[in-house]
């Protein structure tokens, strides 16, 4: 009886001491766990300040950094620069104010960057600024638009002649289509209408690229056996000094008496404005647009047959060439004067491929 009770008591004690131990360890574990959780939270918070440091700092200066073209080139340049431990900034996007290329150049020079990629023009101010930068030991690469009078290191652009030829071929295709229609509809040569071709050029710049495109276009058309009576090329200057003037200028074309049959746009913004105007003025099918650049909306417009064709530029290559030029300068002291990026034509025959690509990029 007594031993039984003793055993029972012993068990009771053992049980309660076990409970005590478990509770004690439980509390200790809770405290440790809460410390760990707390540190985890705080670490998570502090982690955001980890970063990588780069050797060199280049800036890319464009007149409108928001445009798809520039963004795309910037991406190409950024990727290429990162491999060489260089950081490229698209200058301007950090500012709340919108600065012109020239102001941004001044900022870049004052910031003592290691290299400038600028979409230049042939203005004197730009020349001065490039000279100033070069004098301060900052190499300057002109992108897309050149400034030939300056001591810029290199020019990275597209083959304007090739673009002109592509446009010419497309216009000739349009003319051929028209010939067939005319052959069916009209009896005499006199009734046939001359095709009006408007080439939209920027008013401000004496850009040699534009001229080359137009002359290449003309050359192609004459090579393709189009008679002078069949087409008439008009150069329409577009006022791009003011933020909204481009759109207004393009609309003016549609308000005029004779709406052109083909509109050739030489930049992304013009293409988008022209496309929108055609839709708004209900001229789809009457006016063919030859666009520039392959942004998503432009590719979609081709699919909807509002834009006849557009030029796709290998933007990644362009960006890479910019970095190549600057790093060549730092490595060898000099580099090529000209870099030319590849172009491709997009029309309804190959638009599906680009649409797919666009979708994939979206994903």
């Amino acid at each position, binding site marked *: 009886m*007594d031993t039984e009770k003793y055993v029972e008591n012993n068990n*009771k004690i053992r049980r*309660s001491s076990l409970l005590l131990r478990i509770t004690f360890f439980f509390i200790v574990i809770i405290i440790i766990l*809460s410390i760990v959780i*707390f540190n985890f*939270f705080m670490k998570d*918070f502090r982690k955001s300040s980890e970063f990588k440091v780069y050797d060199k700092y280049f800036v890319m200066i464009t007149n409108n950094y928001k445009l798809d073209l520039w963004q795309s080139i910037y991406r190409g340049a950024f990727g290429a620069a990162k491999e060489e431990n260089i950081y490229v900034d698209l200058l301007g996007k*950090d500012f709340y104010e919108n600065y012109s290329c020239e102001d941004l150049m*001044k*900022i870049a020079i004052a910031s003592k960057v290691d290299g400038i990629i600028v979409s230049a023009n042939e203005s004197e101010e730009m020349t001065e600024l490039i000279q100033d930068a070069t004098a301060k030991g900052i190499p300057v690469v002109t992108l897309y638009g050149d400034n030939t009078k300056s001591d810029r290191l290199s020019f990275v652009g597209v083959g304007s002649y090739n673009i002109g030829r592509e446009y010419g071929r497309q216009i000739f295709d349009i003319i051929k289509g028209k010939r067939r229609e005319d052959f069916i509809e009209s009896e005499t040569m006199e009734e046939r209408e001359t095709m009006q071709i408007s080439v939209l050029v920027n008013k401000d710049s004496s850009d040699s690229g534009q001229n080359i495109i137009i002359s290449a276009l003309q050359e192609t058309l004459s090579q393709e056996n189009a008679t002078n009576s069949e087409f008439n090329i008009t150069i329409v200057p577009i006022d791009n000094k003011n933020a909204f003037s481009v759109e207004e200028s393009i609309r003016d074309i549609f308000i005029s008496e004779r709406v052109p049959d083909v509109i050739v746009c030489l930049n992304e913004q013009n293409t988008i404005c022209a496309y929108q105007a055609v839709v708004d003025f209900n001229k789809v099918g009457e006016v063919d647009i030859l666009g520039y650049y392959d942004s998503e909306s432009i590719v979609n417009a081709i699919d909807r047959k509002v834009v006849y064709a557009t030029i796709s530029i290998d933007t990644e290559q362009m960006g890479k060439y910019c970095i190549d030029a600057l790093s060549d300068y730092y490595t060898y002291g000099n580099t090529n004067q000209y870099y030319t990026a590849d172009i491709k034509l997009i029309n309804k025959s190959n638009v599906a491929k680009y649409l797919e690509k666009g979708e994939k990029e979206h994903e």
Partner: protein
Amino acid sequence: MSRFLNLPLRRKIIIIYMVANMMIFIVNTLLIMGINSMSVEMELVYQDNRSLNKLFEALTDVQDNMTEYLSSKTTDSLEDYYRSAQTLQNLAEEMKGQISDLSFSRMRRNIHNMTGGYLEEVSQTVEAKRGRNVEKYRSHYENATELYKFISSYITSLNNAQFVSNTENYTMLSNNYRVFGALCFLVMALVMIGNVIIIISIISTIISPMNELAESANKVAEGNFDTTLPMALYNDEIGIVISAFNKMVISIKEYIERLRESMDKERELQEKELMMEAHLKDAQLKYLQAQINPHFLFNTLNAGAQLSMMEGAERTYEYVQTVADFFRYNVQNQKSEVTLKEEVTLVDNYIQILNVRFSGDIHYSKQVDQRLLTTPMPSMILQPIVENAVNHGIREMGDQGKIKLKVFREDKDVCISIEDNGKGISAEDIDKILNGNWRHKEDQYDNNGIGMDNVISRLRLFAGKTDVLDIRSEGRDKGCEVIIRLPLE
């Protein structure tokens, strides 16, 4: 654990209290540390904005002072300019950023570089002004102002961007803070529950032996000394009390046992006394039954004695007087204890009466140690024995019958021997008489009614031993001896 349980109660309670408080204290300390580190983080959140604002103020100061100097050329403004330029220089040094993934860092780098350029431009402006080179200071001033605008714009942009990002940080931090608060609450609650469990279980290990003790104390109080005694599990005060209680219960039990034994003895003694009294009463009753109004008898006998005196019959007078004495002893003697002398006198009287009745047939002799006559003994003992000896021993022997009374000392006993030379008694009969199984015949008339069994049992009660009376007979017609051994005082 068992070492802890063996500690004194006071220390145990203090330790429990300390441990519980310690845990709460540790948890609280951790919470406060956590809160402190979080508030430090919170203070730092907008640090960048503050330093940018300072930089901007310094920049504006420089610009203002320079403009002031250019317009008024006062010494004060020049001094102010130098001071503010130094401040700006220092602040710009602090701004130094890196070329990294972080846009803020790059912007800081640019601001730092631009500020350097600006300061140079400003100092050239001031130099040119002092040198009165109007053309030069104009152009430098314009450059400086332009740079000032760019830097201001840069700072504003960076400030805004940083504010947005810091606000995000702040939101995240305050979310963390809330989570931390909930966590704290949970931890506090859990620790408190744990504490309560620990305290309850320790207290119950302390209290449960006490409950057991109370339970068994109650049982003992109800008189159940055979209850299970609680175990002293550990050596604290309660353990000590429990073992003291156990010892106490055991010794009480022993004491009660002893008390019971002595009470048993006393009861036995009382019983003995009562029985003796009862036997005496019984003897007296029987004797009284055998009498018909003894007073009348005594008076009658006295009258007879006086008559024989007057007639001069001396022997008759003596006889009647003896008879009267004999019966008076029987009737008057209510005492249970008398002296040996009285008993011997009674036997003398009895023999004298019988000798008158049977005309001197019985030869009676006695051998008495006079010193022993004061020995106390129960009354009505010797006469019945002598009566038996006469009735059953020598009645039919005529004048040959002899009775011998001896009183002597043997060792520490007083011996009274009554011997006859009569028929004797068989051994079986002796056994029967001694064991109280003797049935005497109902029709016996000539005795005073007190049987041997009564005599024997009274003697045994008086002496407190069984061998107080012995009967010896060597066979038929060889006579018989009854020996009584009374303890000498």
